[in-house]
């Protein structure tokens, strides 16, 4: 064995790999690169979620059609027929409700998936490293596929009401996918913000589904925004108008219903919420993911 001098530069070339440094307090600069590297895992987790959910069911994917449709029928019946509330413009009540269910479902599912991600994937996260955000991203993809199916059903409902009621949708319907990003990002980032709290205070695990249920009635899902605003006292109406999810729902309805005015205050409120919660949520999540293994 010759006494060859130890040369740092050739060593790194020889290993032909990148250097990883692990230090306290998450000084990890490769985080975003890692997310890109693990993107396939997100798709695999989404695929798992979808496959597993419908294993050993007869109707399978049919369930992602049935549940929103039944929901829509009940809401249209109670609010449209029994309570006899007014719909948005020329749209049949069912179309308006269904156009609200899609963004609301995206919001609430993204929020609940993301906020519970540390608990639901604890077994995996305790044994393997991957950027933890991959796990809620995967689940979010799975939710998106359900919503895509829902959207196809919406087109079908619109087609039916075209023949029954002569309702013609607006060309803006092409913009729906763009505006559907709002409830996704909103739910996801608020969920990110809540996720580390969920580790310490499991109360949230109980509270979130409950709050989302209340939220569904406060938010104009089953009725139109105009009807709700009219019912709220003038003095506090602006508070109601700032509901960020309402902003997303209004925007989607504006896309579909031709004679619907675009509601700016709720839309801007929604954008502000998103702009605030994306950085705040990511920061909270990254702080939580560093040590959650020690706490779960």
């Amino acid at each position, binding site marked *: 064995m010759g006494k*060859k001098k*130890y040369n740092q530069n050739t*060593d790194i070339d020889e290993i032909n790999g990148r*250097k990883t440094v692990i230090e306290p307090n998450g000084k990890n600069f490769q985080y975003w690169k890692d997310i890109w590297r693990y993107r396939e*895992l997100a798709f695999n987790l989404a695929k798992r979620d979808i496959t597993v959910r419908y294993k050993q069911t007869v109707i399978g994917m049919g369930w992602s059609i049935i549940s929103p449709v039944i929901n829509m029928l009940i809401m249209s019946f109670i609010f449209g027929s029994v309570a006899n509330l007014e719909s948005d413009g020329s749209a049949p009540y069912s179309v308006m409700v269904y156009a609200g269910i899609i963004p609301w479902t995206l919001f609430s599912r993204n929020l609940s998936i993301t906020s519970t991600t540390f608990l639901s994937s604890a077994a995996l996260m305790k*044994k393997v*490293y991957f950027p933890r955000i991959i796990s809620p991203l995967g689940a979010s993809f799975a939710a998106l596929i359900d919503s895509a199916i829902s959207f196809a059903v919406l087109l079908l409902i619109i087609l039916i009401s075209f023949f029954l009621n002569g309702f013609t949708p607006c060309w803006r319907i092409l913009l729906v996918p763009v505006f559907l990003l709002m409830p996704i990002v909103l739910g996801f980032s608020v969920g990110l913000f809540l996720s580390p709290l969920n580790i310490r205070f499991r109360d949230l695990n109980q509270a979130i589904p409950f709050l989302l249920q209340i939220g569904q009635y406060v938010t104009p899902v089953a009725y139109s925004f105009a009807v709700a605003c009219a019912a709220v006292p003038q003095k506090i109406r602006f508070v109601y108008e700032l509901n960020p999810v309402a902003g997303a729902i209004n925007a989607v309805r504006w896309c579909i219903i031709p004679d619907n005015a675009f509601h700016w205050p709720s839309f801007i409120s929604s954008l502000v919420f998103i702009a605030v919660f994306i950085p705040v949520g990511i920061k909270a999540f990254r702080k939580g993911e560093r040590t959650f293994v020690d706490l779960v």
Partner: protein
Amino acid sequence: MAEKTVDNRPVILKVENVGKKYVIRNMRTMPQNLTKGQMLRYKLKKYEKNDFWALKDISFEVRKGDRLAIVGRNGAGKSTLLKLISRITEPTEGRIEYYGRVAAMLEVGTGFNQELTGRENVYLNGAILGMSKEEIDKRFDGIVEFSEIGEFIDTPVKRYSSGMMVRLAFAVASTMDPDILIVDEVLSVGDMKFRDKCLRRMNEIATSGKTILCVSHVMGIVRGLCNRAIVLERGKMIYNGEVEHAIKLYNGIAEEARNTSRDLFDLPRPKYLNEKIRMMHVDIIENSTCIYKWNEPIRFLLRVEAKAEAKDVSLRAVFRCDSGTPASVAFLPLHADFKAGETKTIYVSVNQHNLAPGDYKVGLDLTQENPYDIFNNVDSITPEAFFITVKNLGSQDHEIEDDSARLWSNAWGNSRIMDVTGEVRDSE
């Protein structure tokens, strides 16, 4: 290290002053007889926080191609260290640096989903372990072949036997191609045949120049797989160097830990004993280090106390290797009778043990012959009443005439058959 040749392999993993602190919240026990105010204070502050350092001041380097064993008792911090290196949780202080890709096998079958088929699970598990679809595609046939799953690859995993699942999981995990492979006690899976296969695969990986960090309680695996070892004890690194010395430390029989005089009365006994007779103390005589030359007599004095009358008591000494496997046994048919309350000292001399070089735990049993010619244990200290080491055969051992066994390999076994004769004859 100064006199050795300079190791010019590059450092691939560097751990510097790493520590990991856990904050443990214990429920406080409320003392009795408190005033109302004190009681309220206790209720408000139900928990007390305690700092617990699972690891402290750990520093070592691993060079490319090293196979490093991390040994230590339960709770020594081995798994925590692996979790830090594999980025599952972060250190409280210090710095870890490595080059290339790290893959950790901390548990076989992480992320396996019962509802999915074998094939689906291979892809999912592969993705979890950081492999791309193309990589898995390329290795898929190999995985199926190695796991011996065959036609069941498209059956949901929940219909598998636990052995099948573990085999498939190991097959996926072992096809990873990282720069540093981290293995935590995962080789103890499946049946004997598959375990051998796993071990062979690990050996293949080890000899292919991969860097491996390995935690195992099976010293045979450590010995076979690793070329270096560190020993952890209660979060501190107490040794960094040769595998054999680390194993000795792990077994608690390092030179400094041995004792020629040992109290036996308070050592744990099996539950079935009726405790009418008890070994109290052992003194090893004519040897102050417990290190013996080849076939040097092992002599000791054993003090025995009888609480009740005991007749026809004999002694058995079982010599176990550090893995716990019995290597040899010595019988001493004393047929001694004890009266109630009597204490006697037994002199034992094992004159020719034929034990191969290595460390041994000596367990002692007092036995009594029953009417059915079976020896019952009446007192038993297992696995060890004391430790001995049989030294490697040096040139000073003139008793041995041949040179063939001067350097003993553990692969040859733990005792040597001495009376062997033979000659070379011409074929007719």
